[in-house]
């Protein structure tokens, strides 16, 4: 392969090859579908925030451009935090990423005329962050009251 090769090993949970094998063979950046290795590529940083943005503006359709905008928003967030070989994509725990992505997608839908509800950047931000906070709050209470248990490792 070329210099500074990038390898995405997407089969899950058993990858086509192990990340260290790819690295030994000369890959610079390796990403897999697994959360126990660095660079987990998963659709979870993608669709929840995308749909939040789409639903908040009542978009009539989801265009390819909106999908790519969402991808760029995820990458921009990672870049702000400092990209490196072991960090090319944020994890599920990075709440702020979901808010930024949702706002960007919502604004794109408005800009391209597929939105039925016009909202400002600030409004979209509040909608996304309050929805996330609400869910996190419910989960926390359920954990404290013993209704649900943390997943076992």
């Amino acid at each position, binding site marked *: 392969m070329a210099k500074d090769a990038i390898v995405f090993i997407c089969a899950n949970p058993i990858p086509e090859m192990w990340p260290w094998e790819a690295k030994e063979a000369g890959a610079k950046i390796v990403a897999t579908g697994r959360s126990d290795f660095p660079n987990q590529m998963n659709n979870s940083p993608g669709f929840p925030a995308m749909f939040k943005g789409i639903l908040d503006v009542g978009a009539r359709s989801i265009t390819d451009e909106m*999908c790519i905008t969402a991808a*760029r928003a995820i990458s921009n967030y990672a870049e702000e935090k400092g990209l490196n070989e072991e960090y090319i994509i944020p994890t599920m725990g990075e709440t702020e990423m979901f808010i930024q992505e949702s706002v960007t997608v919502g604004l794109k839908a408005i800009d391209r005329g597929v939105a039925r509800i016009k909202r400002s950047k600030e409004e979209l931000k509040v909608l996304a962050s309050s929805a996330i906070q609400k869910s996190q709050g419910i989960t926390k209470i359920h954990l404290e009251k013993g209704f649900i248990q943390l997943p076992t490792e």
Partner: protein
Amino acid sequence: MAALISALRVVNKKIEDISITFIGARAANMNCAKYIMLAGANPEKMIMVDSKEILHKGRIELMQDTTKWNICKKTNKEGRTGNIKNALKKADVLLLYINLDLV
């Protein structure tokens, strides 16, 4: 997609310039290819391999399979043929989406 954009930022390469090899030619890689092209990658520099060999214009048995034949026509301008080893030459990015049950 996001991972690809970020990874290219780390290694300082432009999406228009890179050669991408896809191993696996079913729904997952087909859609990756679609969105990577929409994001600005050059299809002529892409190569996809299915369970038999590299997709190229000579694979006339694939004409019935519109999705694969479309890739045969659009990608692999240099007309590479053969196995995965040939597909990997000069590749900047490798995407693996293989059904391991078939291996």
